[in-house]
């Protein structure tokens, strides 16, 4: 659906050159919700703005439905944009138009008649729960309501791609969850491909199928959300995930922990349970069958979009052989074990 090939973008400012994107390669499939996460200044907004050419890259190709949009004429570009919705952090609603007319804007640009507009946007007003707000003006709405209007507006021209730049960053947790649920709905109902840009791990967890980590203009990692959380390939991704998910080991433990094993060492494990493996009583088997002494010091359950992920940090006491067997058993049952260190 969307392919980015060797995309690079440098801004020249008075202070010097800023490389916002460096050789980005991404392939986003039809119907998926793809997330790009990264810290502030990583180049996320620049990346998403390249996809509809609000920003022109210096190098590389952007293929949408296998067409290189960098070669489009301005009228072809307008046509392309008609079929791509975009949602912004600060909503960007027209203050001079009421809710109904804001949602109608993309269709007015396409010269739809007012009957056609009515027919098209009424279901969207219902979908976004704005039935009794159609005559309100943006300044009379809460942030969450404004973002609903923006979602409805993005959907009005029947797009097959929606771009979200920090769509929930200006909202509180509850409201942002409601917006995320709305986006999930839309994706499921109509199979619209959604590209979301965010610095909130929560958005990735709740919404995305796949995710890419962007740091200083480079993609460090690109994986399914479950893999991203359970087996990040780079140190940087690991660090980021740990801080964002509050998964750092307690200081008391890390101070004593050694990186490599020593005589009579007790390993510290991080165990990930996915799907069904969470349902078998793995820990009690470890204790009963392998005679291990398991000390759980922290645990967490992450509800990802399609899967539940359990995370357990434990210390394991026992004979070296039993520890090995216990680890093999866990892995055989589909859990993932990571040795964090030894105490």
């Amino acid at each position, binding site marked *: 659906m969307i392919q980015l090939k060797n995309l690079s973008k440098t801004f020249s400012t008075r202070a010097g050159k800023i490389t916002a994107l460096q050789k980005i390669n991404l392939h986003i499939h039809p119907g998926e919700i793809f997330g790009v996460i990264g810290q502030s200044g990583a180049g996320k907004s620049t990346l998403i703005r390249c996809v509809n050419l609000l920003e022109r890259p210096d190098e590389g190709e952007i293929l949408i439905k296998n067409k290189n949009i960098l070669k489009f004429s301005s009228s072809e570009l307008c046509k392309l*944009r008609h079929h791509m919705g975009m949602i912004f952090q*600060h909503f960007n609603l027209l203050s001079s138009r009421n809710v109904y007319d804001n949602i109608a804007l993309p269709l007015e*640009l396409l010269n739809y008649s007012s009957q056609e507009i009515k027919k098209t946007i009424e279901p969207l007003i219902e979908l976004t729960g704005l039935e009794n707000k159609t005559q309100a003006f943006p*300044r009379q709405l809460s942030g969450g309501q404004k973002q609903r209007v923006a979602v409805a507006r993005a959907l009005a021209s029947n797009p097959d791609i929606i771009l979200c730049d920090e769509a929930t960053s200006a909202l509180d947790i509850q409201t942002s969850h409601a917006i995320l649920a709305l986006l999930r709905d839309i994706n499921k109902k109509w199979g619209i491909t959604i590209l979301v840009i965010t610095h909130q791990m929560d958005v990735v967890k709740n919404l995305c199928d796949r995710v890419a980590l962007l740091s200083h203009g480079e993609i460090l990692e690109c994986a399914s959300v479950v893999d991203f959380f359970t087996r990040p390939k780079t140190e940087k991704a690991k660090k980021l995930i740990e801080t964002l998910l509050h998964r750092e080991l307690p200081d008391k433990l890390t101070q004593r922990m050694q990186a490599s094993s020593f005589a009579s060492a007790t390993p510290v494990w991080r165990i990930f349970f996915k799907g069904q493996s969470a349902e078998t009583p793995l820990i009690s088997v470890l204790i009963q069958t392998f005679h291990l002494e398991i000390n759980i010091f922290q645990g967490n359950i992450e509800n990802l979009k399609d899967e539940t992920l359990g995370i357990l940090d434990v210390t394991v006491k026992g004979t070296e052989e039993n520890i090995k067997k216990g680890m093999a058993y866990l892995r055989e049952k589909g859990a993932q074990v990571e040795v964090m260190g030894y105490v």
Partner: protein
Amino acid sequence: MFEINLFIEPFFQTLYMVFVSGFFATVFGLPLGILLFITQSQHILPKPHLYRGLSLLVSGLRSIPFIILMIAIIPFTRLIVGTSIGTTASIVPLTLCAIPFLGKVIQTTLQEIPFGLIEASQSMGASTQQIILKILIPESLPGIIHAITLTLINLVAYSAMAGAIGGGGLGDLAIRYGYQRFDTNVMFFTVVILIVLVQVIQYLGEQCAKRLKR
């Protein structure tokens, strides 16, 4: 004391000068302001040369004192209205003076529209023309009304100078009676009428803008 009739004709002459030149100033000044706004670099229709040319022209015209402008463009005035003296003739310099003023104020007004709005409409595939008609003008309408009001008030002041080329109007009356014949009553009353006129224009403009503000 004095004839009330004395004021009737000059009063309507002033109204005529102010509103006709205000009308033409809007016809040319609004597009000028929009053009100044969109041709800036990094904007929706970047044309650096055009922008620089227009800016230079605007600031150039604005720095010429009105009384000098009025005399300097006499040939041009004659070309357009066929004569260089009289009320109608004074409309040409008044308009020419008001266009760059209004253009500049409208450019400043448009600058207040959050750029995100313009980007959002671009992301919907709006053409430049659609952005102007559906976003820029509606979003800044209260500001545009305010700019036109300001221009009209300025025109009231400048129209007083139009007496110098036989333009007539209240300003001319005040100068003739007050300055040349020392008739302070006429002068005083003229000033009162001018103040009331400015207040009325201001009030109507504000009401209009307020009604449009969301």
